[in-house]
């Protein structure tokens, strides 16, 4: 079993993180997944939420991601997100703006894609309130 998991977070604009961590928690569509080294290979679809990286028992990194995928292999976890922002930078302002944009998109049309976007917006809004409570 490999002794460490390389967590990579990439958005279309840049490579945000590439580091060895003990555990990664990623928001998959069917529920959060905790990824430890030696995880079975998987490709999962993501919903809007938080990607957390744990190193030595504490949360070392937190990223807000919206949509995308994750590829998991025994030694690597690659999060390929449509949008990804470090949590610190994604303080409530960004999330609220994002929620507004998503809701505006939703009210314009009601195709399947947009419903998904609406769900993402709701998730982000929840996330925003959690963050505010924490601050």
């Amino acid at each position, binding site marked *: 079993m490999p002794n460490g998991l390389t967590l*990579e977070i*990439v*958005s*279309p*604009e*840049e*490579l945000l993180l590439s580091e060895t961590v003990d555990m990664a928690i990623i928001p*998959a*569509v*069917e529920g959060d997944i905790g990824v430890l080294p030696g995880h*079975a*290979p*998987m*490709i*999962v*679809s993501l919903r809007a939420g938080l990607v957390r990286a744990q190193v030595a028992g504490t949360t070392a990194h937190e990223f807000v991601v919206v949509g*995308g*995928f994750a*590829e998991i*292999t025994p030694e690597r976890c*690659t999060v*390929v997100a*449509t949008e990804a922002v470090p949590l610190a930078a994604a303080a409530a302002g960004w999330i609220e703006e994002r929620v507004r944009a998503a809701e505006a998109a939703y009210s314009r049309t009601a195709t399947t894609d947009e419903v998904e976007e609406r769900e993402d917006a709701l998730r982000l809004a929840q996330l925003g309130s959690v963050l505010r409570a924490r601050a």
Partner: protein
Amino acid sequence: MPSLKSLRTRINSVKSTRKITQAMKMVAASKLKRAQTQAQAARPYAERMERMLGSLAASVAGRPDAPRLLVGTGRADRHLLIVMAADRGLCGAFNSSLVRFARTRIRTLVAEGKEVRIITVGRRARDLLRRDHGKLIVDSVTFIGKTRIGFADAQAIAGKVRGLLDEDAFDVCTLIYNRFRSVISQVPTEQRLIPAAIPAAPDDAAATGPVAIYEYEPSEEEILARLLPENLSVQIYRALLDSAAGEQGARMAAMDNATRNAGQMIARLTLAYNRQRQANITKELIEIISGAEAV
């Protein structure tokens, strides 16, 4: 023989032209640097995406119900070309060579009896193609006034393409853009988008051990259905960035040439000016001397 005054004005005007081209070169150089950094930053995403798509697509491609974005309609009668050039000129042959390349392609396709539609990206592409193929242009996108191309711009173009695919308006979609080979060399390139050119399975399989059998959550089809539109956007985004970097590279080279030419011209004009001045002085002297002798 031009008068001294007109030579002086010429020299001054060429000098100010040189100042402008020099400034444009500097601006292009700094923009190029930014564009290159952006293109570099976008690479990891495209690579990861390609890897995932490679492992997914191989398993789905053979099925009859495979998504259209992946396998197309099965015919090749109607073509959609995305022609990508710059919004602005003054960048050497960047736009014209791309449009020439596109024209050749369009002519070949039309000669083969195919139906062609065009989406232009960039004002120059639209303006240059409108004259010959105006009827074929179904849509055009420009980024005038935008300082930075974002992923959202690529998504917008991808959205248009998907819309047309849903309307069953084409069979094959090809992207024509300037690939950035180096600062001084941009190559007009065509890249097939639909049916998707499946990246070959990674050949470093030996290094990473046997090819992993992935589990999928949700199903393979659902992931693919989300991955393919994303992949389309990524391909377009990559081309946009390549083209943007190429444009600045081409402009830098063109402006460097222009500055050099202006320098040469100033030297030539200055020489002519000095000769003329000397000739005038000599003439005046001769007049004075011969005037004195006559007395």
